[in-house]
Each structure stands twice: as structure tokens, then as C-alpha cells.
């Protein structure tokens, strides 16, 4: 017996209020969406980008709408513990509101050119490349991306050689994945520090 379901033609995704997750990723139509919020007195999430000139930290403003171009390594401090190079543009929004600060990232999976994400770690001391891997996001979708990213994080954390810079000898701190509820104790502690 088949079950007939109507196609979904619209999505409503509250970013604040009781229906909104405090933090998390979701897939809606052809979009990967991350949202988060916290009280005004909590430490803000901050977006960093890797440019050839160095690391750029996006200034904090009352509200900001920024586009991270496809292929540019970026990360949101305390949200995911690696540099992510996405096969599509990542649209980043942060805004003050009456309850604190709200954040959103939207990545469209529609462009045919978006086939994968690359995760990489670089030495926090001197910037040398430490480790990277590619995840076929188009094939594995958000769930697979999360699972594979977490597996990569744990492999990186488990191997001190991967985390030790060959150039300067600095040891990279432990990494953490996309979803805080997946953290073990060490990852949870790491998420709070960098």
C-alpha cells in the first residue's frame, strides 16, 4: 500500500521564540540552514575567513549580512572546529534582537557546482596546513556531512601527529563537530575555548 503525501511548497523556520532551536543545522528544500541565538550578555559567535593575506575576523555589528564565497575557508568560532570550504556561497546573517543575538547561515545546494565540502585544520601558531579531507555533500546530504565531519574531528583528535605542526611544533587544540549535542566531554570543552 502506498502512502500519498502532498509536496512541501513552503517552509517557516523561526529563528527565535519557543519553536526555534537554540542552535542547530537543518535542511529545507535545497538549502542547508544553521541558526543560533544567545542572550545579549553571552559571548558572540564570530565568523573567521582564511584569505591569502591571513585570517580575517568579521567585525561585530548590531546586524550584518555577509557572503562567504564558494571555496573560501571559513569557520564560526564555537560552532564548528575546523575550516570549512563549501562548494557554494554561504550567506551569514547576525542581528541583535530584544532577546539577545540571533545568527543564521544559509547555503544553497541548488548549484550543480556544489558537490563537496572540504574540512581543514591549520596551525594556530604559524598558519601551516595540518590536515584536510573532502566530504561529498551532494551525495551524503546534511546528515552525512555531519556524520563524516564528526568522524574526521575524532580522527584528528585521536592522532597527536596530525595535530602537531611540522613547521613550528605547536600542537593544535582538540576539534569539535557541527552539532554540540554530539560532543563528548573533550569536544565540549574544546568548543568553549576556540
Amino acid at each position, binding site marked *: 500500500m502506498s502512502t500519498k503525501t*502532498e509536496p512541501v511548497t513552503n517552509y517557516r523556520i523561526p529563528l527565535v521564540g519557543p519553536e526555534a532551536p537554540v542552535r542547530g543545522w537543518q535542511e529545507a528544500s535545497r538549502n542547508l540552514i544553521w541558526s543560533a541565538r544567545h542572550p545579549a550578555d553571552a559571548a558572540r559567535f564570530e565568523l573567521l575567513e582564511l584569505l591569502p593575506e591571513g585570517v*580575517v575576523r568579521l567585525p561585530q555589528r548590531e546586524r550584518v549580512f555577509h557572503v562567504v564565497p564558494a571555496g573560501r575557508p571559513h569557520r564560526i568560532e564555537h560552532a564548528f572546529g575546523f575550516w570549512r570550504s563549501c562548494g557554494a556561497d554561504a550567506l551569514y546573517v547576525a542581528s541583535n534582537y530584544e532577546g539577545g543575538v540571533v545568527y*543564521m547561515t544559509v547555503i544553497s545546494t541548488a548549484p550543480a557546482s556544489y558537490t563537496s565540502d572540504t574540512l581543514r585544520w591549520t596551525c594556530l601558531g604559524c598558519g601551516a596546513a595540518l590536515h584536510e579531507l573532502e566530504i561529498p555533500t551532494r551525495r551524503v546530504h546534511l546528515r552525512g556531512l555531519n556524520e563524516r565531519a564528526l568522524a574526521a574531528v575524532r580522527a584528528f583528535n585521536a592522532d597527536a601527529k596530525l595535530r602537531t605542526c611540522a613547521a613550528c611544533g605547536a600542537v593544535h587544540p582538540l576539534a569539535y563537530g557541527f552539532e554540540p549535542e554530539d560532543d563528548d566531554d573533550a569536544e565540549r570543552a574544546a568548543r568553549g575555548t576556540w
Partner: protein
Amino acid sequence: MMYYAEINVPERLDALLDDWDLLDDRVIKKLTTFKDVGENVVGVRRRMVSGNTVFDPAKGVLPESVEIGPTGLITQTHEMLSLRITVGGAPHRVPHSMGFWHINDVDELYLTLPPPKPGEPAYFLVIMGNPKPSSNEGESWAQYCQVCLTMLHEHYYKTWQFGMDGHWRANLAAIREYNGDVKLRTCPECGHVNPLGYVWNTAKQTPEETLARHEW
């Protein structure tokens, strides 16, 4: 590749990243209609928002948006800080703002951010994919009978080929084509004669279309 210490911002950021904040007063002026921003098309409107109602200085009160879903009309009221996605292929319109049903092959996203201070305009963000030449993704301006929802007219635009440069001209052509022939506005199923359509841009409307904007 090597990456070193953080660059001091914001002084140098503007030199490194053009228009890095789309809500900056200098940048937002470029987005009052739509502008290509990387892989997307982005529009930002400053609008007064009170509760669930948006006030457009040229169009008046815009209380809701409407979509034609699998089982009929779906009405949505406006919500601050709630991301809305109209999935590609779903006919949608805003009464008194869009005198047509827009059918886009790509998803459209809407988000309203709070105003800087109470009593000031909020930020209404519209984001949609920018079809690449290889994608064959376009859009339509369509008309449906207001009584029985029979499709009356559809004007298709090859966005993937002509881009946003021709978007507004095509919108105008669609409306003038529909308004120019009462047979197009007369439903072949129920006989209802539907009102004139009108374009998004109030500066392009005729006096008759201005009246139609008030009506529906």
C-alpha cells in the same frame, strides 16, 4: 599554503572584501530592487513593520503573502526573525504589491531583521538563487482566475539566459500582454472576468493599474 596572524579590521577589511556587509548604509542602497551577489540575487528593503503587518510607503499596508499550494491557497502572515522559503515552482504573490503570481524555478528566501530602534524601518531580506546558464532555470509571471484558480496566462522568462537585467522589462511585458486582451482575463472555465494585473514597481504602473493595485 600558510596563514598567519589575524588582519586588523575593519580598516583593511573594506580593501580586502568588497561590500562585505550588505546591510551597511553604503551598500544597502544598491539592493533596493535586486542585485547579483555571487551565486545569489539579493534584495534588501527598509520597511516599517508593526506586528504582522508591513507598511510599504508606495503601496500601503501589506498584511500577508499568498501561495497556491497542492490543496489551494495558503495565506502567510509576516513574522519578524522567521525565515520563510517559497520552494521553487510554487506560485506566490503579495496582495497590493505583486499584481501577478510569480513562479520561480529557484527557491526564494525571506527574512526580516528588527529595526535599529523602535519606530525605525526594519530590514526585509529577499534571497534567491541566480540561475547559471547551464541550469535552464527561469521564472514566470502568471495569472489565475480569482474564483476557480484556473490558470489564465503565463509569461515565461529565461532567467538563466538573460539574467536579472531583463527581469523588470519582462515583468512589465507580461502584465501589459495580459491587460491588453480581455479574453485573457476571462476565465474559460467559470466565465469570471478578472481584474487587471500590475507590476511590482509602482513607477511603471498606468492609472488603471493603480486602481487594480488597490483592488487585489
